[in-house]
């Protein structure tokens, strides 16, 4: 976690990018021709009214739709320039590189330690000393270490909602992903827990590329470098966060940020 501000500021290369992305649930066309590029070590916020397709878009980025019966994805998602939907690409490897944090904290009913090292164990690491190292590093990375270091062998379900969500982030960090997708990670949390998660995201972007769905424009303004606005399955506008809230280019974006869609 020792990265100087200068270092984090120089990254401009595109990390993950969608090209002509179309997503269907059966006949329902949920995402229409979305083109979005996310720079390395930046935070991209996805905003838009409920039901506009933010989660649907996000889940296409790590092939979670493979698990949804009836869902179909067309177009390309490029990770470092390689299409993750190309034939011959293993979705398991993709998800190894692109982690995901869900809307509701979903820790496994296991101990805190077992939650964090679940991914490394799945990938074949069983050396207890190494696992402990990873566990500490990941929990520190998720700003949870100090709160749980004395009770790693207690159940994750004993933690508060905010702690559970940070545990899920730690669990995600433990597999050492390059991109982290977050779907309204703070929407089920109280304001204090929310601000902890927001601080954390600011730290995370030094090492990772973050794409986060949020229903709160204030949150997007606080934490993101770029913001993408979705409306009814369409990606309307993408811009640096500062400018999208002050000088939106599209009328529909302006209507949304001035509160005309509720």
């Amino acid at each position, binding site marked *: 976690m020792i990265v100087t501000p200068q270092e984090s500021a120089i990254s401009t290369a595109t990390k993950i990018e969608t090209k002509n992305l179309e997503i269907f649930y059966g006949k329902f066309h949920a995402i229409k021709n979305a083109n979005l590029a996310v720079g390395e070590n930046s935070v991209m916020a996805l905003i838009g009214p409920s039901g506009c397709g933010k989660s649907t878009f996000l889940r296409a980025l790590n092939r*979670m739709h493979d698990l949804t019966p009836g869902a179909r994805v067309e177009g390309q998602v490029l990770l470092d320039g390689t299409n993750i939907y190309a034939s011959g690409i293993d979705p398991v490897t993709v998800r190894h590189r692109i982690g995901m944090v869900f809307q509701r904290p*979903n820790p496994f009913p296991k101990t805190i330690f077992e939650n964090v090292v679940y991914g490394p164990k799945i990938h074949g690491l069983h050396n207890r000393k190494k696992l402990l190292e990873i566990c500490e590093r990941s929990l520190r990375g998720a700003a949870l270490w100090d709160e749980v270091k004395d009770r790693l062998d207690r159940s994750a*379900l004993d933690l508060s909602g905010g702690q559970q969500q940070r545990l899920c982030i730690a669990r995600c960090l433990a597999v050492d992903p390059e991109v982290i997708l977050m779907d309204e990670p703070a929407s089920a949390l109280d304001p204090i827990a929310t601000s902890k998660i927001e601080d954390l995201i600011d730290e995370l972007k030094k090492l990772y590329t973050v794409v986060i769905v949020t229903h709160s424009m204030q949150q997007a303004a606080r934490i993101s470098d770029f913001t993408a606005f979705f409306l009814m399955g369409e990606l309307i506008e993408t811009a640096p966060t500062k400018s999208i809230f002050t000088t939106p280019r599209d009328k529909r974006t302006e209507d949304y940020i001035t509160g005309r869609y509720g």
Partner: protein
Amino acid sequence: MATLEMSAGGVAKATSPSALQRKISQTLLRALTGVAALFSFAIIFIMLFFLLVYAYPAIRFNGWGFFTSPIWNIGNQYGSGVATRNGFSGAPGAEFGALVFIFGSVLSALLTMLVSVPLALMVGLALVYRIPRQLRPIANALVELMAGIPSVVYGLWGLVVLVPWISNALAPWVTSHLGFIPFLGGPTGSGTGLIASVFILSLMVIPIMVATTRDVILAQSNAIFEASMALGSTSWQAMTRAVLPSVRSGIVASIMLAFGRAIGETMAVLMVCGSAINAFPSNIFSPVNTIAAVIVSQLESALTDATGMAQRSLAELACTLFIITLLINVIARAMMRGADRREGRGHA
């Protein structure tokens, strides 16, 4: 519309309970659930108590030999006089040893679980994650149907289809190709016996476990599965390392239920087990006998025992089965609670 609203308001006001009312109803509810729990315990103990009282002469007459002797012999019914031990009398030469039946019950139930638990878990997982959506209603109906077939039907099917197949095809093949493995070689008999019992029992308990496995997984949200997949697991890993452990208490409960059914099953086993008396199985094809089956098959001859000791010994058998089942349940619960405490799960 207006009247509806008014009456709704009226009801709300009428049922809005005062603190006292709430307290009373809570206390009442707690008392009722307490009584219900006590009641079910009481029933178990009353049943066991009366069985034990009835079996008491046999318990004294048989002593520890009941658990250590493999010989079951109701004695000479036509001779004169009686044999008396510890103040209780049976027919001359009578000896009631249950070891063969206890061993047969436990062995066939354990082997059944060994076969059916992995299979049932796989099928349960497949029903949730693998079988195409369109086929699921059919597959589910099939499981429900299999769980509902009476055991005597399984037994009859076993007798007319399975047993001949074992004796004509399976046993000759196994003994000639795999006979060098312990318990797979040697005499094969008529097809009735251990393997037939295990096969039939598995058919009977698998649907029960499949249905529960499926239901406990479906009752849980998809979040655990997705969490694992998002960490780069294969779906097999997600099922076995995340989903199954998270529904473990439900699955253990269904395994217990299935074990109880397997060890207590009477009719179907009676029809295919070969009714061994005074002999232990020497391989998987040997005739066996179980406590439940022997109670039925020995009942008629026991009723002819003028001393009544044979009947009372059957009751002692019933007590034994009862206690074995109870013990298994207690042990399983204790194990589960230990695991839950270690992982801080709520208790089921």
